[in-house]
């Protein structure tokens, strides 16, 4: 260890950072409802996201009912089926994953981890949540609108998205969906500004960028990406809304529908695809990078070992973030693009595998000879590594044009993206909830229920999505609500579909146990104390648990070291908090 202070024994000068004037709530309403405290906003964001997420879970059950047992359930008409898959996809990707990682964990962890009292613009932060809630309500209202929600598929491709044959196309469905997305982007931009500027300007004394926990690096980079990617979704939605409501022809080509020439003409559906995927691909990493960061911290803490290759981890996060903006057209190989264009995007896509692989190696090397505690958060973190590798490898297949073209419309793609950006990030969300719940509520989640939840979810998710790869290779098409008698499919394909459906119900049931655990443990969980995992980062060093308004009591902490001082030889304990001065460490070393 090298002391960079000129004289390690000399007391650190008092903080020169000006105290931020905190907004102090005056009533119950401003304290718990229209709160400007990032921690309350985080809980509001998370509760809303989990609530709408359970709607998506129910939708996935309905999808599986139809796929597993076609023709058995009369109420799942083909229209309803398309509405279910559309809403399931949109909710999971945007309203659950993005909102929970950035709005939920971002709000809760950024100020605490960088040692700030709150976000830098608390009022804007509050607005961000309420606009998000409005977006969710608009989305939910489409279930009750005439014609029901849109059934255009989560990618909302024109022209079919706004035509009569598509559920919600000429009714309210698509209008409400586009409006909801526009609101979401506005709300997110407000929140995103906060997350970025808080990391830039709100760090406490001594918290250099290279001392930030990787969780903050992941959320920070993902937020920067989201701020630059979501405008593309915004532009696409506004233009499609104009096409649908005012009859412009941005995306709509000349079309004859039921013998009638529509008023549109000359528009380009491919233009929409470019805009959509310019947002859509970074979106994958917007949910993956926070997951990467959180997993790094979980593994390091629960293996009692410093993260291997911290610098590489940071660089990899930044490089992945930058590269993800130049790969979007690999979602469009089958749109009839120029072969050289496809070649370029296949190359950039495969290059992303390098920084990602670096991260996987570093996680594994962090585990190597670590003092691994198989706590529930650790189990989820380990499950993430295998799941992500799994989904990533099929990504290498699909990144190649020649492999993608035959597989593009099969269940193989469904299996791939569920593994890599469905199961993997959600597993991290679970791990993170088990990890930080004690800080948020002061009590531990029940361990037995947690173990049950983990094993059923992990094994179940594999039993759901692993067979799907085979179905895809066999040629089972995606987007079909019923396979019927296809000559190419053997009887076993249908049996496998039924099996997948049954597993989906079992895994869904395990989520209800998790929900029960979340509620039950608020009152009945074991008392956690301030730092149950004996972790080094600042959020575990707060004077109160749960942290009070203002987070750190009278004085902000001063940071003296990086976030990963676990099992330092000669130290008194197997972890040294980030705010422990070197002199105290030296004294403890002297005592040994």
């Amino acid at each position, binding site marked *: 260890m090298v002391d960079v202070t000129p004289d390690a024994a000399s007391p650190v000068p008092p903080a020169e950072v000006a105290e931020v004037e905190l907004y102090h709530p005056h009533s119950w309403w401003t304290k718990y409802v229209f709160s400007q405290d990032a921690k309350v906003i985080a809980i509001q964001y998370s509760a809303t996201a989990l609530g709408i997420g359970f709607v998506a879970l129910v939708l996935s059950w309905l999808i599986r009912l139809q796929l597993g047992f076609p023709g058995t359930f009369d109420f799942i008409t083909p229209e309803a089926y398309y509405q279910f898959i559309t809403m399931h996809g949109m909710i999971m990707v945007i309203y659950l994953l993005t909102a929970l990682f950035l709005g939920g964990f971002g709000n809760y962890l950024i100020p605490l981890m960088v040692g700030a009292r709150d976000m*830098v613009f608390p009022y804007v932060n509050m607005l961000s949540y309420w606009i998000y809630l409005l977006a969710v309500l608009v989305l939910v209202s489409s279930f009750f609108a005439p014609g029901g929600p849109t059934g255009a598929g989560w990618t909302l491709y024109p022209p079919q998205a706004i035509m009569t044959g598509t559920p919600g196309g000429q009714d309210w469905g698509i209008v409400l969906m586009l409006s909801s997305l526009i609101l979401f982007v506005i709300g997110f931009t407000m929140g995103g500004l906060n997350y970025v*500027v808080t990391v830039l300007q709100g760090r406490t004394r*001594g918290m250099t960028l*290279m001392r930030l926990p990787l969780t903050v690096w992941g959320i920070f980079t993902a937020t920067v990406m989201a701020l630059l990617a979501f*405008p*593309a979704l915004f532009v696409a939605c*506004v233009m499609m809304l104009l096409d649908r409501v005012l009859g412009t*022809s941005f995306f709509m080509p000349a079309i004859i529908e039921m013998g009638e020439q529509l008023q549109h003409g000359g528009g380009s559906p491919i233009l929409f695809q470019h805009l959509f995927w310019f947002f859509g691909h970074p979106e994958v990493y917007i949910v993956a990078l926070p997951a990467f960061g959180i997993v790094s911290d979980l593994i390091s803490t629960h293996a009692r070992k410093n993260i291997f290759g911290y610098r590489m981890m940071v660089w990899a996060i930044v490089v992945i973030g930058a590269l993800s903006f130049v790969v979007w057209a690999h979602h469009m190989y089958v749109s009839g693009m120029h072969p050289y264009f496809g070649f370029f995007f296949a190359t950039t896509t495969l290059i992303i595998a390098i920084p990602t692989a670096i991260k996987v190696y570093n996680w594994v090397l962090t585990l190597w000879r670590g003092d691994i505690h198989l706590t529930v958060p650790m189990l989820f973190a380990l499950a993430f590594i295998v799941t992500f590798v799994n989904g990533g490898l099929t990504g290498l297949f699909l990144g190649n044009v020649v492999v993608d073209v035959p597989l593009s419309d099969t269940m193989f793609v469904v299996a791939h993206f569920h593994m890599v950006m469905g199961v993997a990030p959600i597993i991290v969300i679970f791990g993170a909830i088990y990890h930080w719940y004690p800080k948020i509520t002061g009590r531990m989640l029940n361990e037995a229920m947690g173990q049950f939840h983990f094993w059923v979810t992990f094994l179940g998710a594999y039993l759901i999505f692993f067979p799907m790869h085979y179905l895809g290779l066999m040629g089972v098409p995606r987007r079909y609500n019923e396979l019927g008698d296809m000559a190419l499919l053997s009887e076993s394909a249908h049996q496998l579909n039924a099996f997948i459906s049954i597993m989906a119900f079992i895994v869904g049931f395990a989520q209800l146990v998790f929900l029960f655990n979340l509620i039950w443990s608020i009152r009945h969980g074991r008392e956690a104390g301030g730092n149950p995992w004996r972790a080094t980062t600042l959020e575990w060093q707060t004077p109160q648990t749960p942290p009070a308004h203002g987070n750190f009591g009278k004085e902000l902490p001063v940071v003296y070291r990086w976030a990963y001082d676990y099992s330092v030889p000669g130290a008194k304990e197997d972890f040294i908090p980030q705010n422990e001065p070197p002199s105290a*460490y030296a004294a403890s070393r002297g005592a040994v």
Partner: protein
Amino acid sequence: MSIVLVFLAVVAAIAAWWLSQQRLMAKPWLEQGSTAAFPRTESGSMPAAKIGLGVFLAVVGCLFALFASAYFMRMGFPDWRALPVPPTLWLNTGILVLSSVALQCAVFAARNGQFDMVRLGLVTGGLTALAFLAGQLVVWRQLVAEGYFLSSNPANSFFYLITAMHGLHILGGLVALGRTTAIAWRPEQRDRLTLSVELCAIYWHFLLLVWLAIFAVLAGWAAGFIEICRQLLT
């Protein structure tokens, strides 16, 4: 998509320059102690609001770059019939320049403590911005009167859409400007005034810049620039 990629390349260059100042080569596991030895990596002294505005402007810039990208991609299709440039747009551009100049005067006055001049600058800036919006509406009326409707041609659609987006951003700026003007009349809040005026001015200059770019694109003078962007990327 070439325009938005060029825009992102600029953002990435700024981000890379900033990251290069942050000691990314440091080995944090070997360093402990307070940060007296590396002061440049402390949170900067620039006010958070200014950084926040900067980040927001990057988002707004990205939005308009995407609109421009879509504009040029759609332009390549055969049904595109370019609009004539209404001469009123020149007048509007002049008014918006005046607005920016007035706010810049307000910034200088605020730094020198001449509060009468600050109020004059803010009010002039606000009124000229309103005049600009009114002028844009006049342009819309003229185009409609000449038969250039929103949905009759994609060139028209883009014209209305992009000018509307720009106008909405000016409207949002006017809300902030209104609050700043209110502060300018309250002597007890003078310590906040300079920063507020500066933020308004930065936002106004940026929107002026965006407007000039939009104007160039809509009037068809930017085609050469696009060709250069395309050449750079291919």
